[in-house]
């Protein structure tokens, strides 16, 4: 049953991927700026420019360029970077490993703080604790993650000297250094995401707390902790789960700026550098990869619904 559902979802996502690939390919070519010009710079002469363009395959007609690229992608070959001849797919995977560590940590921390905070605020609706939580969430939501990153660097890096201001150390190399390097970029992302999630969790919890079955549970004398845990949280988390998928996506885009600020060699910076350099194979490969991740996350979330909500299972 699940396998059939999975297969159906995967097949349904194929047209999306195809449309995205065409869209990205064409959009990139419509943006002015010649990648060959950026490679040769101001030491260029016409012959050299033409040679580099041919080397990049840009001398071929657009449909031919697209079909060649698509054929390579279907074989699992995302091509080579125009700038440094690095194979795109292995580079993507390497950069993604860095990004996923920051995102996963930020995601877990956001969820760990926001879910209880949202439930608690809803439970204490319009009281001091609720107002404090909502105000904090609104404040945090108003601070862009890049600004938060700069503030963290100034405080913990420059002023106190507790944390390194840039770079990344793999966990395998040194767990302590890994943690020290990853704290600030993660924190910069966590604040905003926590705020969004808290507000969302609060709203859905308030809605659930107003349901008749909650009144019934309370009236039959169940302790408040059981009402909240067993009857409220379970029902309130489903809409939040949908949002969690979107938050993962927004975390992925948030890392673009954060990775640039903290000098992390992640997927976001990989993409930004490629855009400035008009590095078509890297941009196309990265965007396609990000779309794949979005699709995968949404499939996973769809699979989680029936586990959390029996009504979905029955449907």
């Amino acid at each position, binding site marked *: 049953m699940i396998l059939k559902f999975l297969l159906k979802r995967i097949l349904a996502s194929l047209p999306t991927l195809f449309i995205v690939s065409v869209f990205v390919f064409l959009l990139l070519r419509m943006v002015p700026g010649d990648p060959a*010009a950026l490679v040769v710079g*101001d030491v260029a002469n016409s012959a050299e420019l033409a040679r580099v363009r041919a080397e990049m395959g840009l001398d071929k007609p657009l449909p031919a360029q697209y079909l060649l690229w698509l054929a390579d992608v279907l074989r699992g070959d995302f091509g080579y970077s125009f700038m440094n001849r690095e194979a795109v797919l292995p580079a993507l995977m390497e950069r993604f490993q860095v990004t996923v560590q920051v995102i996963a940590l930020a995601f877990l921390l956001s969820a760990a703080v926001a879910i209880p905070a949202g439930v608690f605020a809803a439970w204490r609706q319009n009281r001091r604790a609720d107002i404090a939580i909502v105000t904090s969430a609104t404040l945090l939501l108003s601070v862009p993650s890049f600004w938060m990153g700069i503030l963290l660097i100034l405080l913990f890096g*420059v002023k106190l000297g507790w944390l390194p201001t840039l770079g990344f150390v793999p966990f395998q190399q040194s767990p302590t250094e890994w943690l020290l390097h990853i704290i600030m970029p993660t924190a910069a992302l966590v604040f905003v995401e926590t705020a969004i999630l808290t507000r969302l969790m609060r709203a859905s919890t308030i809605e659930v707390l107003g349901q008749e079955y909650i009144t019934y549970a309370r009236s039959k004398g169940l302790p408040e902790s059981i009402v909240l845990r067993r009857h409220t949280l379970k029902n309130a988390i489903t809409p939040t789960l949908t949002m969690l998928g979107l938050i993962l996506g927004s975390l992925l885009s948030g890392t673009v700026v954060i990775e640039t600020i903290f*000098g992390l060699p992640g997927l976001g*910076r990989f993409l930004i550098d490629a855009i400035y350099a008009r590095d078509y194979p890297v941009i196309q490969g990265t965007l396609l990869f990000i779309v794949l991740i979005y699709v995968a996350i949404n499939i996973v979330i769809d699979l989680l619904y029936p586990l959390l909500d029996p009504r979905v299972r029955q449907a």
Partner: protein
Amino acid sequence: MRLALLLSGTVALWAPQVHAAAGAKQSQEPVFGGVIRVAINSDIRSTNPGVRRDGNTDTVLYHIGESLVAYREDLSVGPLLASRIEISEDHRTFTFFLRQGVRFHNGAELTSEQVKWTWDRLLDPETGFRCLDYYDGSGASGLKIESVDILGRYKIAFRLNKPSALFLDRMASIPCQTPILHPESVAPDGSWRRPVATGPYRLGEWDRGKSVTLLRFDGYVPRSEPRNGLTGKKIAYADRLVFQVTPDRIIAKSSVYAGNIDLLFAMPLSAHNEVQRRVEQRGDVKIYHQDTLDWTVLLMQTKDPLLSDVRMRRAIAHAISTEMVTTFATYGLAPPNPSAIARATRFWRPYYGQWLSYDPELARELAREAGYEGQVLTIQANRKFSYMLDNAVAIQAMLNAAGFNARIEVYDWATQLTRFLNGDFQLSSFGYSARSHPALLYGNFTGSKEVRESYQWDDPLAIRLIEKLETAFTDAETRKILDRLHREMIRQVPIIGLYNDHVIDISRANLHGYEPWAFGRPRLWGVWISHAGAGR
């Protein structure tokens, strides 16, 4: 009879301005060991010199590889791997006598064999050497290396198709660097592996997107004369050089404060006052100032219907105060320079500072004469190089004040560069990267637009004068031609020169021996870290 060229070390005339806090103790004696961490704003493109390159790539690679010749501090060319150079009377044959006992990073000794191998590889179009047109006859100079002949184990001759006074300057070029490599640098199929060269540092690890680490080459054999530009005695004090990719320059500056980075070069000029205050108040950093060879200009498309009239170009020049633009864009840190002869070169003299006077009234009159009736003048600029946008803003204000109708179009750098290469602009706020010899800079923007759209100055007299520079074998001859070129520039106004870029580098106070220079990029031999106050 052959002319022996004595290319021995000369005393540097130039001295950088270095400000350190009074309290910062200079380490009297150099110290071996440690790591120097340098911020670079983007990753290198490859480890293949002169082939897949950009400014950061060049910077990293000139610590690894060495050419037969290199620039001295005064931007003259001196021997590096050569011990001396003989130039034939007809100036077509350059014979290099190699220093003996020089070792490659793999332990092999440098001989004429590797020099020939390196040059054969560079001249092979398959290699993709960016500056092949310097040497294969296809460039504006028409210069071609006809042969590279081994005359002995340590003696090798380059035969040119015509006399050239600039051959050694081209060979020493940093963007077009030609380090002598060992054949082990490439795989049997000819694909690039890693540089096995003769420099004071060897490649350790390139962690893509993150850092490039160089390790001290213990077998390095330095020259005997004092450090001078990219030649002279190079002593690698640090065990390791780490070029750390730090895309954001302001964060890089904070990282110097925090002790995570030891040196940041080309810091945004806007941060100058803040860093200066820190130098004075805390003394934990040093600040270095340097005028570079990079030349900032306003390009004018002489094929444009309006701008093809020299009166219109002169009108625009009279409407712009280069002094004011320079002060505005460089925070008063750089002097203006309307000529293509950089202030840092030995050829500079006050005459090259002369330009059309700032006279908005005359500008209006000339524009009227040229039939200008308020048509829009579009200035292209970009945000990547913010000074280009700053220049454009100042120029627009002056042009509009003088009665022109100027507007700015802001592109990203890729678009502006492509438009520049295609000649697709009316006015463009632009910059030319460093060229050591004025002839090379003039050669980069002078020529027929039919040959290359990016040539700005398409004038037969100017082209002839630049060809003459190719065979000007003395500085006096060169100066005479440069004078004429500048005179013609003032008359024809194909381009409006503004200033040579000013760079500010900052380092931790415990970094010693560092000196900026006219190329605006760091040299890290002869530089050491004292242990006291070392950063994280």
